[in-house]
């Protein structure tokens, strides 16, 4: 089995340790979600279960916005699906590196496809030394930290733990963005990427201004990807 699809305990641990700091960056957000969930009447168990099974903070916040009795199940499904559309693109980018993954491992890979974990691992897969064990380990630790932080927030429900100023003083609120910048730097291939990334930046900023929310990530990503694809497609002979 190639390195890219092999899972060992050692690589799982290495992946988990690597994602501790990026995972901790979600602590303030997780605590905030826990507080919000408590205010909506969810129990500590329900809050933690939601965080562990959905593992997507933004869409969980969106779901809380529409959480009412009777619960609008269709609206919940659509809003969570749409809020997570950037993972559709991320999963598509990952699949060519794991083409022969057994069917029972695929849901595990989908589950751990979250922003920072995907970013770090796609960079390694593209350089030819991706490791499924690290990918799964990283996702596992992020799931534990995310779920744990929402539970903390629920239990504290507005107490001292929900104060984000400590994280700001240490710069921890920047960790998530730092991961994106670091991995983008690793992936940068020089002149070839300048124009597509320029398009992505411009479209993302325009989308944020025009639409708001987090749509700018998938819209900017698709715009930059399409520009690069069209340019390369026209250049190469068929």
């Amino acid at each position, binding site marked *: 089995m190639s390195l890219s699809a092999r899972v060992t305990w050692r690589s799982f641990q290495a992946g988990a340790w690597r994602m501790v700091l990026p995972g901790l960056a979600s602590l303030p957000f997780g605590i905030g979600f826990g507080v919000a969930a408590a205010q909506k009447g969810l129990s500590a168990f329900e809050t933690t279960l939601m965080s562990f099974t959905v593992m997507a903070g933004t869409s969980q916040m969106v779901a809380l916005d529409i959480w009412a009795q009777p619960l609008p199940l269709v609206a919940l499904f659509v809003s969570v699906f749409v809020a997570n559309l950037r993972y559709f693109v991320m999963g*598509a980018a990952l699949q*060519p590196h794991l083409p022969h993954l057994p069917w029972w491992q695929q849901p595990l890979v989908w589950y751990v496809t979250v922003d920072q974990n995907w970013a770090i691992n796609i960079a390694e897969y593209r350089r030819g030394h991706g490791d499924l064990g690290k990918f799964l380990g990283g996702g596992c630790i992020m799931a534990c930290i995310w779920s744990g932080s929402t539970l903390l927030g629920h239990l504290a429900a507005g107490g001292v733990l929900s104060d984000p100023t400590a994280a700001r003083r240490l710069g921890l*609120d920047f960790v998530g963005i730092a991961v994106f*910048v670091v991995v983008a730097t690793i*992936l940068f291939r020089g002149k070839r990427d300048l124009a597509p*990334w320029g398009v992505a930046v411009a479209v993302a900023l325009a989308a944020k201004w025009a639409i708001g929310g987090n749509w700018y*990530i998938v819209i900017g990503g698709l715009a930059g990807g399409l520009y690069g694809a069209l340019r390369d497609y026209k250049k190469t002979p068929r």
Partner: protein
Amino acid sequence: MSASPENLVAIFVMALAAMAAKGGGFVAMRWLGRHRFVSALLDHAPGAVLVSAAVVPLVQAGGAYWAGAVAAAVLTRTAGGFTPGLFGAVGAVALARWAGL
């Protein structure tokens, strides 16, 4: 360990939706990936997604975040790799805020 049946069903529906989004692209690529244009798109998509995700918070937050982004890029290139870039970025933001940015 309290949980209402209605809330549990809603949580299950949400988990299903999240997995559908996360797995949908992965599954779709098994058929779409054979096309040259799709391969080209996905060659550029990861970098485009990353810069899109980073640029809006950078522009919105300004100051300290830009210091962190520059530190992240420089350290990643010069020191080589993920860890120096990440820690340097966080340190740069903390320093910038301490300095009043």
